[in-house]
Each structure stands twice: as C-alpha cells, then as structure tokens.
C-alpha cells in the first residue's frame, strides 16, 4: 500500500488548486472554466490518468466552491461508466428529487431503479425550485433517455456516493479552516475565542471527521465497485456535513451566517450534499445490507 501522491499527482493537485482559485461565485455555472477544463482534458482525467487523479481535481473544485457540476462530470460520471458526456452533467435521483444545477446542464445522469440513463437537456423538463442553498435547484422530469445497461443503476449510486464524500470532505475542511482563522482573530473575554477548549474541540472534531471522509472518498473512488465502502463514505460524509455545519456556525456566531462573510459558501452546500441521494438514512441502510450480503 502506498498513500503518498506521486510527483505527477502532486503536480496535478497544484495545477487544479491554482486553476480553481479566485473563480466567480456569483454565477450559476462558470461556463468559461468548464470550457477550459474540457479543452485541456481535465474533465476526462479519470479515463486518462486514474481515479485518484479525478478525485484530486474534484477535491480542489469543491474546496474552491467552483460554480458548476465539476465533481459530477470529472468523477461521478466516469466512475459510473458514463463517458463522452458534455461538460455539464446533472445528477437525477428520481422525478421528485431536487437536482443541483437543474436547467443549467447539457446532460443528466438519471438513477432509475436498477438502471442508469443518460438524457440530454432536450430530453428533460426542468421545474426550477427556489432554495436557500447556493445551487440552482430544480426537479427534472425525464422524457426519454439512453440506458447505460444492466447494473448501471448500482454503479451510478456507488459513484454518486463517492462524489458526495469527496465534495463534502473538501468543503468541510475548507469551512473548518475558515472558522479556525475566525476564532484565532476574534477576541472575547480578553483572549482569542479559539483559545477556549470548548471552541477548539468543536473544530478539531469536525476536522477529524472531514479527514476521515476525505480518505473514505479516495478509497471509494479506488474501490468503486465495493458498495460497502462507497455507502460507508457517503454515510460518514453526511455525519461530517452535519457536524461541520453545526460547529463552524456555532463558533463563528452572528458573522458566520452573513452572506458577506463567506462561511455559508461551504455550509449551505454541505446542507445540500447531506440530503442528496436519500441522505444518511439511505446510505447507512445500504452499508448494512452490503455487509450482510458479504458476510452471509
């Protein structure tokens, strides 16, 4: 086993970080960035380099809260076996579920029981739904789509769970780092509030859970056919999202809930990820079933 990034992976990670830094956050989809990623081959990095490379790009995109479904296109779709898709892909769990970037995607990957389908933007009807989260949300009714084959539904579910873990870990780590800076700078009772153990422990606990989610996400991408690992990754991601949301808001107080401050760029997205694909309830039950299937 070797958990160290190779020199090429380190370079890719550095490039991704630089590429995603300072992008606009006030657009629905950063089409200019998506076009550049497409032109330079980053959207197909999983097929050209491997799952860890795709995870690295996805982690950096999530950390920088890039506007657009980068994780869905770079990581989830190819892990699910859906290749040669356009640059913007939405993930649809069912006719009543809320879909991030609905109405802003050129294609949709649709979970339909045992099968997954690909539908173009022309093959769906989108009903926008107002949401507090920064994502453009909507319901997507699929009129027609192309099946990805038998068993593709499970593959998409597993890949999506990995995506949830990868996005959650990056956003949680970024939110904790952001809150850590706040509690270092903010003084009350004559000292930085980050010097109080009660504050430190909240952030430390969130950081640990986010790190666990990070490595569960990486292992999920590597072992993407193992439902026990992918569902565990998503289950733990949901716990991490909640823990991080609660703790970072608690230690940043009133300023933390303002748009101006910036913490909600991550936390409101964590809220959405936490609920996706049935949320912790659905993921955890899949973990239990996968283990039972493997041990009996």
């Amino acid at each position, binding site marked *: *086993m*070797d*958990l*160290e*990034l*190779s020199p090429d*992976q380190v370079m890719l990670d550095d490039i991704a970080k630089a590429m995603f830094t300072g992008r606009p956050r006030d657009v629905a989809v950063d089409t200019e960035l998506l076009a550049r990623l497409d032109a330079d081959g980053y959207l197909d990095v999983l097929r050209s380099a491997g799952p*860890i490379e795709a995870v690295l790009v996805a982690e950096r995109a999530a950390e920088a809260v890039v506007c657009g479904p980068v994780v869905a296109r770079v990581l989830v779709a190819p892990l699910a076996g859906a290749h040669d898709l356009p640059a913007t892909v939405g993930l649809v769990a069912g006719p009543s579920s809320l879909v991030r970037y609905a109405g802003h995607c050129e294609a949709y990957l649709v979970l339909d029981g045992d099968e997954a389908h690909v539908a173009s933007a022309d093959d769906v009807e989108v009903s926008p739904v107002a949401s507090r989260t920064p994502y453009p949300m909507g319901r997507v009714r699929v009129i027609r789509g192309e099946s990805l084959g038998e068993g593709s539904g499970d593959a998409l579910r597993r890949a999506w769970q990995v995506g949830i873990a990868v996005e959650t870990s990056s956003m949680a780590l970024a939110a*904790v*780092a952001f809150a*850590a800076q706040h*509690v*270092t700078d903010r003084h009350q009772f004559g*000292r*930085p509030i*980050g*010097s*109080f*153990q009660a*504050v*430190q*422990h909240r*952030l*430390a*606990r969130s*950081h*640990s*859970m986010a*790190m*666990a*989610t990070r*490595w*569960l996400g*990486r*292992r999920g991408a*590597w*072992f993407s056919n193992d439902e*026990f*690992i992918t*569902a*565990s*990754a998503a*289950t*733990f991601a949901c*716990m991490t999202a909640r823990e991080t949301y609660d703790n970072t808001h608690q230690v940043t107080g009133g300023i933390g809930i303002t748009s101006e401050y910036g913490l909600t760029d991550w936390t409101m997205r964590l809220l959405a990820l936490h609920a996706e694909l049935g949320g*912790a*309830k659905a*993921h*955890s*039950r*899949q*973990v*239990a*079933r996968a*283990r*039972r299937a493997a*041990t009996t």
Partner: protein
Amino acid sequence: MDLNWSEDESTFRAALRDSMARHMRPGWTLDDRDMPTQADIDAVKAFCAALGEEGFLTPHWPIAYGGRDASPWEQLVISEETWAAGEPRGGQYMNTNWIGPALMAFGTAEQQAQHLPPITRGEVNWCQGFSEPDAGSDLAALRCRAARDGDSYIVNGQKVWTSYAHAAEWCFLLVRTDPDVGKREGITILMVDMRSPGVEVREIPNPFAHHLIHEMHFTDVVVPVTNRIGEENRGWDIVRSILANERVGIARHVHALAVLDATVADADDLGIDSDDHGLEETIGTAYAWCEAARSLNYVAVAERIRDPYGARPLASVSRSITGPMEREVEWACQQILGDQALAAGSEADRQVVTGTSSMIAAGAYEVQLDLIARLTLDLPRSR
C-alpha cells in the same frame, strides 16, 4: 498512490493467518487479552513464542535486532490480524511496537542485548508505568520519585490504571528524578524488574473485567542505574516519541467490524429483525464509523513512514475517530440486541468494556482534540 495491498503484503497476511491458526488457543476472545488467569498468561507466551519462532512477532524491526526490516504496513497487517482474533499477544504488542523500538533508539548496547532478544522470542511481558493518581492526561505532572543512591535509584511512589501489571516481568517506568525543575525536565525512564523487593501490584476492582486495571506501589525499590534508558532527567523527549508510536497502527477497526458482524448474527439467532429500517440505519452507521477509523489508521501509518520522528498530527486525528468508533459500535450492539446484550459472554457484552475504555486509555480523547487544535488547526493556546 496505490490503495491495494501489495502482493508481498497479501502473502505475508496469508502466512500470518496460517501461523495464527496453528498456534492460537481455540476460543480466544478479547476478554482473554487481559490475561486474568495463569492459563491465559501461559497461552500468550506460548503464542508469542511460536509467532517469534516463525518470524511474525517483530518482522518490522531492523535486521540487527532480530527483525527483517519489514515495512510498517506489515506491522499493521499483524495488528489487523491479531485484533481480529482478540489480540492473542496479550500485552506483548506494546513490547514490539514501542518498548523495543525505544530501547533500540535510546538504550545502551547492554540493555539492548539483555532485553530485545526475549521480546523477539515472545518470552517476556512488559507493562508501562505511566499514569498516577494525580498525573493522568497531564502525564508530565508525575511524582513517583527516584532518588539516586550510588549506582542505584531508590524508587518510591505509585502508578495507576496499569494494564498487564500482574503478568509483567518488567516495567517501563516513568519517574521523577528532579522535583526542582520544570515538570517536563525532571523525568527519567527506568526499567524495573517487577520481581524486585518493594514492588506491589494490586488489581483495581471494576465491573468490566478481571485484571483490566491495576495499581502499582513502589516502596524503596532498588533499581540499578544501568537500568536507566537515556539520560537522567531527559526522559520526556523519549516519552513523546513513545506516545507517537503508541498512537499508530492499533487496528481496532477490524475487531469492531467483527463485533458488529457477530452481534448481527446473534440478533438473527434470537429472532430479532435487524433488517428493521431503524436498526439497519444504526448498524450501517456503526459500520461506517469502522471504515472511517480504518481509513485514518492507514493514513497515520503512512505519516509514520513519511516522518518517523515528527510530531505526527495525523496520529491524533486517527485516534480521535477510533475512540468514538468503539463507542458507536458499543451502543449499536446495545440497540441491536436490546436487553439480550446484557447477558455476559456475547461480543456485544464485551464491547461495553472496549467501548468504555477506548476513549480513556493511552491518552484521553480530549487530549487528542487538544493536539489537533494545536498541531493541525494552529489555534491559540488556552493558557
């Protein structure tokens, strides 16, 4: 990055399993790890001797000290396999993981010659005399006194919560040799023969397990100066190194997974519907904690490989997930079996002991959070 076990690592695991299957006492459980009976002490020594004979006890040690320079990943494989089996090495995992390495790094040639071979042969049980009634999480506040008297130290004081003390021939003892300097500056490490006059071990009664914890009393115990590890009053630096090793690579996740598997099977036998949606969520969540702990355990091993002598912040991150994992599994088992979990002898019952102690022993959970706040998040010091 390669998240698969290598062919060599897999081959090693298979060979270790084969060895363990041949040498483990049938029916061994984690309860037996505390060695509550002489038969258990004998079983541990027989098992470790057999493992040592076949090269599975200290393969990660340098060749010069009886190992074969195997990677820390193989050390982790040993931990995964032994924890899955209820840790039949008893307390000897301490010998191989940090007491031996401490001697290699800081011991004299004579000390190494005396103590390392018996460890590699699985012949000796050690305990560690760290905590005291007034020095637990604040370990550096320890007061057990060692006064120099010619070529000896005279040790007086008390240690508490000590595991395996009743079965140990030797103690890795922290003592205060200079009470007039800063609390981290007057600490020395001594190796104490537990058969020395003046050493008394008392079991501390508790509702969890026999011989789980002990107190050790030292009354005018004579310890030769030649039994000192490192310089006088410079023991704290060694302790920090030891604690870093102590925190890495204990594969509790494997045992926790096995406990959950067994408890779900017990539920099936008892006619409890563990497919009930609420229970499934509980079970799945607990399994997810196990996988989270596994993931970070591997990360901590990688950190150790990358920086063997560094501060190891990821070791604390790993331990801050492992402790809660044990508690999560403990309560999941209680929920799965309901009142049936209270009957002694099941894995669910044993997990009460493991879950309760996991966030207390070897550095409390809150200490790990303190370390993460300081070493990783760089938060201001609290005082």
